[in-house]
C-alpha cells in the first residue's frame, strides 16, 4: 500500500491545483470574485512562500534555529542576484555555488 500512497496523493493534488486554477473558468461567467476577497488572496503566495522557505534556511521541525547556516548565506546570495540580474540561470548557479563552497570549507 505504501508504494501507491504517493500516487494517490498526487491524484488528489491534481484536483487541488486544477480546481484552484479553474475556479472561474469552470464556473463560467455566473460567478464573480468579490473585490475584498481578491485583495486578501493577493497576500496568499507571499505568505505561503515565506512560511515554506524560512524553515528550510534557518531550521525546520525538531532542529535548532541557526541564523548563520550555509543555506541562509546562500539564500542571501540568491536574493542579491535576483535583484540585480534578470537571467533565470544565475540564481541557481549562485545559490548552489555558495552553498557548496561553504559546505566544502566547513568540512
Amino acid at each position, binding site marked *: 500500500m505504501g508504494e501507491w500512497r504517493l500516487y494517490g496523493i498526487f491524484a488528489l493534488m491534481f484536483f487541488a491545483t486544477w480546481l484552484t*486554477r479553474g475556479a472561474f473558468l469552470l464556473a463560467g461567467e455566473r460567478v464573480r470574485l468579490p473585490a475584498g476577497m481578491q485583495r486578501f488572496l493577493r497576500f496568499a503566495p507571499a505568505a505561503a512562500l515565506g*512560511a515554506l522557505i524560512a524553515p528550510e534556511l534557518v531550521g525546520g*521541525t525538531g532542529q535548532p534555529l541557526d541564523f548563520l547556516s550555509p543555506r541562509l548565506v546562500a539564500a542571501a546570495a540568491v536574493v542579491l542576484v535576483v*535583484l540585480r540580474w534578470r537571467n533565470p540561470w544565475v540564481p541557481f548557479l549562485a545559490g548552489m555555488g555558495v552553498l557548496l563552497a561553504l559546505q566544502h570549507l566547513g568540512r
Partner: protein
Amino acid sequence: MSALRMGLREGVGEILVFSLGLVPWAIATGIAMRASGLSIGESLAMNVLVFAATAQLGTLPLLVSEAPVWLILATAAILNLRFVIYSAAMAPAFHDQPWARRALGSYLLVDVVFLVQGPGLLQEQDAQRRWGRFLGAGLWCWGTWQIASLVGIVGASWVPEHWSLGFMGTIALLVLLVPMCRERVMLVTALAAGASALLLRDLPLRTGVIAAVIVGLVAGYLFERRQQGVAREQ
C-alpha cells in the same frame, strides 16, 4: 487555414521567448523531486498530474515527512491561490467555450501564459481563434516544462548526494518570492509568515506551516490598512 490553426500558431509565437524562462525552473523542480527521495516514476507522475511548480516544490518537505494528506492538499491549494485571481481575470475569454475546453484550459493555465496573454486574449473576438491562441501557448509551455523537468529528473541520478541538490527547490521558491517583495506589504507578509513558521516549527503534524500562512495573511492585511490610513491622513 482555419481560425483554430491560425490561433495555435499565433499562441506559440507569443509565448516562445518567455517559455525559455521555464527551463531552469523545470530542471530545478525535477532535481528537487528526486533529491527528496521520489523515484523517477513518482516524479513523472507528480509532474504530469500536479503540473504546478510552486505546489510541487512547496509540498515536497511535507511529503517526505509523511505529513497528513489534508495538510499536503491545503498547502498545494494555498500555493495555487494566485490562480484564483488569474482565472477570475481570464474567465471572460472562456465564457463561450464548451466545458471540455474550459476544463483543459484550467489544467494548462500557468503564470507565464496568464502574464503574456491575459489582457490581449480578451480582445480577440473570434472564439475559435481565441481558444487556439490559448491552447497553442498552453501546450507549448506544458511540453517545454515536461521535457526540461525530465532532464532534471533523469540527470539527478548522476549527481552525488552530498551536493545538496534539493536546495535547488528552495532557490526556485526564492526566485518567485523576491520580485513580489518589491511591494512593501508583500515583504511584511512574507517576513511575518516566515518568522511564525520558525517559532511554530514544532507544532504537531507540521501544522505550523498553515498557522504561519494565516499569520502572514493577517499581517499583510493589517499593514495595508495602516498604509491606506496614513495615505488618507496626508
